[in-house]
């Protein structure tokens, strides 16, 4: 789906304000991601994992959800998505710098392990694909209580090789649960290309195995993802059961700050991929459609940069967790 020039705002039922807001969130996610990588290169953040290239998919899905109502069980590339769901740049800078005020984990986990009860973002660990089953249980609870909430859980295409993924999709389909399985397919699991991960062209080819509607969508096309996610959310909310939604993304950065993708990807491959920057693409699209006027993109960028500056100042000044808290919260206290 692209915005037709004549009626851009009407496309997908989104207002011009909403479209600009979507673009703004993409830019915020991108700039924050870049900032975190800088902190890592400066030696201040010991570890960073980037979601660059996944922003359009994440904004598309996030805007299809009801914020502070629907739930998210994310994975480590979902910086932009957890921003859309209500977290702040400050939260993530606190995490990167290992500050006590990191709301995800109080600096107990590496950055990129999102979680916020306040925003219905479920705490996540590192083992790939375990979260799939949690989302199924959450969806089960919604159905049990007769709530019309929806839960989205995301994972990379690599994670679909794990047994947990299979067990989760199967269960959700049997019980027609209100859950959306988002697969952000960037064609690599660290260095392992898709061809060594599966013998099918699309993860969505696996939907019919569970009797589950499935769709592959261009993850660089924000509005296409939004449309597909809306259909899935509507299906889930109205009792129609789960959906497998595959968004084909690019991984613009290396797997993490501990990786260098030039060691296993060709320069041509990397150059080709860079031509698919989703943030640039959305900007061009919105400008072409007149949703963004001249200078709008720049001022959005500046506004986001300012937010990040302020957040970083706060994070810089914030203290690390006190050693005295290290033994807390193993079991419920008090």
């Amino acid at each position: 789906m692209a915005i037709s020039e004549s009626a851009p705002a009407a496309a997908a039922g989104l207002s011009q304000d909403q479209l600009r807001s979507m673009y703004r969130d993409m830019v915020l996610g991108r700039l924050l991601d870049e900032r975190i990588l800088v902190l890592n290169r400066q030696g201040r953040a010991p570890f960073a994992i980037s979601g660059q290239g996944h922003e359009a998919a994440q904004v598309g899905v996030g805007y299809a959800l009801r914020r502070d109502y629907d739930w998210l069980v994310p994975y480590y590339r979902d910086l932009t998505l957890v921003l859309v769901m209500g977290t702040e740049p400050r939260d993530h800078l606190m995490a990167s710098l290992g500050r006590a005020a990191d709301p995800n984990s109080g600096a107990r986990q590496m950055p990129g392990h999102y979680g916020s009860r306040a925003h219905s973002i479920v705490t996540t660990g590192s083992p790939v694909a375990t979260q799939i089953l949690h989302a199924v249980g959450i969806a089960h609870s919604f159905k049990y209580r007769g709530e019309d909430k929806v839960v989205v859980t995301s994972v990379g295409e690599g994670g679909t090789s794990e047994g947990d993924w299979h067990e989760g999709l199967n269960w959700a389909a049997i019980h027609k649960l209100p859950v959306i399985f988002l697969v952000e397919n960037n064609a690599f699991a660290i260095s392992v290309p898709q061809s060594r991960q599966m013998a099918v062209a699309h993860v969505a080819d696996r939907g019919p195995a569970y009797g589950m509607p499935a769709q592959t969508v261009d993850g660089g096309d924000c509005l296409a993802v939004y449309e597909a996610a809306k259909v899935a959310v509507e299906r889930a909310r109205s009792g129609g059961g789960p959906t497998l939604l595959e968004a084909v993304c690019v991984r613009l950065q290396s797997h993490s700050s501990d990786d260098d993708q030039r060691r296993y990807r060709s320069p041509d491959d990397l150059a080709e991929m860079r031509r698919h920057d989703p943030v640039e693409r959305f900007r061009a699209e919105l400008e072409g459609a007149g949703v963004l006027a001249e200078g709008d993109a720049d001022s959005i960028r500046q506004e986001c940069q300012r937010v990040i500056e302020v957040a970083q100042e706060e994070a810089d000044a914030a203290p690390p967790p006190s050693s005295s808290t290290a033994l807390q919260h193993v079991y419920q206290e008090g």
Partner: protein
Amino acid sequence: MAQITYVEAIRSALEQEMRRDDRVLVMGEDVGPKGGVFGATAGLFQQFGEDRVIDTPLAEAAIVGVSIGCALAGLLPVAEIQFLDFIPPAMDQIINEAAKIRYRSNGDWGCPMVIRAPCGGGVHVHGALYHSQSLEALFAHVPGLKVVIPSTPTDAKGLLLSAIRDPDPVCFFEHKALYRSLKEEVPEEEYLVPIGQSRVARAGADLSCITYGATVHEAVAAADRLARDGIEVEVLDLRTVRPLDRESIVATARKTGKVLVCHEANLAVGVGAEVAAIVAEECFQQLDGPVMRLGGPEVPAIPFAESLAEVYCLGPDKIEAKLRQLAAY
């Protein structure tokens, strides 16, 4: 008060708590119309319906993982793993997820759930290598979990009620040999047996035998034999193997000065090693003999043939022999 069996006590705890609190769900393989392979959920499906008593696909990681999701979303799931031997596929969900959720979220999230599983074997259970294991050590090692192994119908009910109301994940292992082998007067109304508190199963001043699960009964039988010779053995039933009731362990060891720790599980790096290590560290000055251990030998599990199984299993004879050895020290 009615005389009921251990499995009836489990069933009654589940039923009472489900009636009391509609957040409580039961899920597992064959827990529905069949009522579980040991009958622990018999009748619950008929009483509470398929939304609360869920026959799951044959997928243990999913049983635990989906239960975690339910717990995160405010329900109180009681997951049944059909045999403890089949819990390893769910290990990642248990030790990397359930056990770490509170800590990793700095207390933002919690994971109140119970994982029930029948454990243990023995010469008359015939479960053999894959229907007889006692794997509690794997969980007792893991901070964030609680691990409960009741030895009587009364404890089974009171501890299961405590487990369901506990705000953290509780592994609740039930010895198959106990399910129908002993009856006891068990209060019909609800009552809680606190997690983390041991129980003196038999008082005595000469030796301590620290144990749990089905072995408690074997230890008491052995102790009764020593009593005929005037040797009084105190049998401590741990009831909870994580967290251990350190105080009571130390108290009985200091009192008698001679400790035998025994369990059906494999000995090496088992719960008994932890108990022995605590005693060795905290009761050095009071010990009148080496801390002894008795447990499963260095084989992977209990074999099928009785002639082989009896090599693995303890039983009163082996415990008695070891206690006499310690008494003579």
